[in-house]
C-alpha cells in the first residue's frame, strides 16, 4: 500500500481551513497519480493503491467539511464516493480471487475443481467491475474531479484568509 505523502508546513496551531486546503490538494494529486494502469487486472495493487488514495481524500473531505461551501463539498464528496465504490467493486473481486487461489494451492488436485469454478465466476464479475470502472478513471472524468476539488481548496483558503 502506498504511504500517504507528507503535507508540507502543516502545524497544529495553523488555521483549520488552511490545513484543509493543503491536505485536500496533496490527496487529490495522489489520487490522480495512482490512476495509471488501474484497469490492468494483472497487477491488482494498482487498484488497491488508488482505492486507498480515494479513502484518504474522502477522509480529508469529511474531516474538514466545515471549511468548504456546503453544495460544492457535497458534490465533490459524492464524486469521490462514486469513484471509491467503483474501485471497491473491482478490489473485492481481486482480493477474493487471490485468496481462493491461495486456498486452492493447498488442496489436493481432485478437490480444486469446485473452487476453480467459483474463481471463474469471480473473474467474470471482475471483468464487469472493470467495465463499470472504465469511465470513472478516464482522464476527462479525473480532470473534472480535480477541478472541482481545486475550487474547494480555493474556497477553504479564502476562509483561512
Amino acid at each position, binding site marked *: 500500500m502506498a504511504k*500517504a505523502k507528507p*503535507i508540507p508546513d*502543516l*502545524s*497544529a*496551531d*495553523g*488555521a*483549520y*481551513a*488552511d*490545513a*484543509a486546503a493543503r*491536505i485536500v490538494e496533496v490527496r487529490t494529486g495522489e489520487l490522480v497519480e495512482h490512476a495509471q494502469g488501474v484497469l490492468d487486472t494483472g497487477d491488482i495493487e494498482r487498484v488497491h493503491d488508488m482505492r486507498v488514495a480515494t*479513502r*484518504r481524500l474522502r*477522509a*480529508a473531505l*469529511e*474531516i474538514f*467539511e*466545515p*471549511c468548504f461551501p456546503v453544495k460544492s463539498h457535497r458534490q465533490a464528496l459524492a464524486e469521490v464516493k462514486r469513484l471509491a465504490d467503483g474501485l471497491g467493486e473491482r478490489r*473485492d473481486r481481486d*482480493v*477474493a480471487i487471490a*485468496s*481462493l487461489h491461495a*486456498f*486452492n494451492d493447498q*488442496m489436493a488436485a*481432485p*478437490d*480444486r*475443481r*469446485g*473452487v*476453480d*469454478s*467459483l474463481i471463474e*465466476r469471480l473473474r467474470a464479475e471482475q471483468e464487469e467491475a472493470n467495465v463499470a470502472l472504465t469511465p470513472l478513471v478516464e482522464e476527462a472524468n479525473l480532470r473534472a474531479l480535480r477541478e472541482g476539488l481545486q475550487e474547494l481548496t480555493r474556497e*477553504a483558503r479564502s*476562509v*483561512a484568509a
Partner: protein
Amino acid sequence: MKARPVKKLDPTRSLGENAARIIQVRLDEMRSFAPKALDGKAKAQHDMRIAAKRVRYVLEATGFCFGRPADTARRRARDLQDILGEIHDCEVMMPRVRAHLDQLQRVDAEAVRTKAGDAPDLDPRLAAQARHRTAYRGLDLLSVYLEARRRLLFDRFEAFWRRQEETGTWTRLERAVNRYLHRTREARRTVKAAERARLQAEAAERAARRAEAQSKRARLDRERAGASSDDLPGHRPEKSTQR
C-alpha cells in the same frame, strides 16, 4: 454507517483544536461498538471496522498534533481495521460459496432428472455421474475453512481488543486529546483575561485623563472667573500705594 456529527468545529480556529474534537467523537464511536462486536454481532463488527477506519484516517491527517499516543493509536486502529476486515471478508464469502454450491447442485439435479426420462423411479447411478459432482467437495472444504477462519479471527479480535484496553492505547489518546483541548481553553482564557485587563487599564487611563482634563478646566474656570470679577463696573482694583 453514518458518522456521528462533531459539534463546535470552527474553520477559523486551529487545526489542533478541531482535530481534537473530531478524534474525541470518532474514538468514542469506535469504542461504543465494542460490547456488541465482542458478543459476536456481525453488524457491530462491521460498524466498528468503519469506525476504526475513520479513527485511522483522522489520525493519519492530524495525529502529529497529539504526539506518540496518536501514532500508536493510528497503528492499532489500522490493525483493528485489518482483523475486522478479514472477518468481514469471510462473512461475505461464506454465503457466496454456499450459493455457488447450491447452483451447481440445482443444475445437476435438473440434468439428472432429464436423463431419467420416463423412468418410474430415479436410478442412483445417474446422480453418481452428475456433471459437477467433483466440484462439491472442494466447495464444502472451502466453507469449512472460511467458518473456521472466521472463528480464529474472532478470537484474535477479542485478544487484540483486550490487549489495547489493558495497555491503554485508546485511553492514552483520549487523555492526550483532552489535555490539548484543556490547554487550548486555558490559553484562550488567558488571552481573554489579558484582553480584559488591557481594556480595564485603558478605561482607567481614559478616566484619569478625563479627571485631569476636568480639573484643568475647573482651574481655568476659576482663573477666568477671577479675571472677569476684576473687570466688573464699579470695581476698582486696589491701587498700590507708593509712598
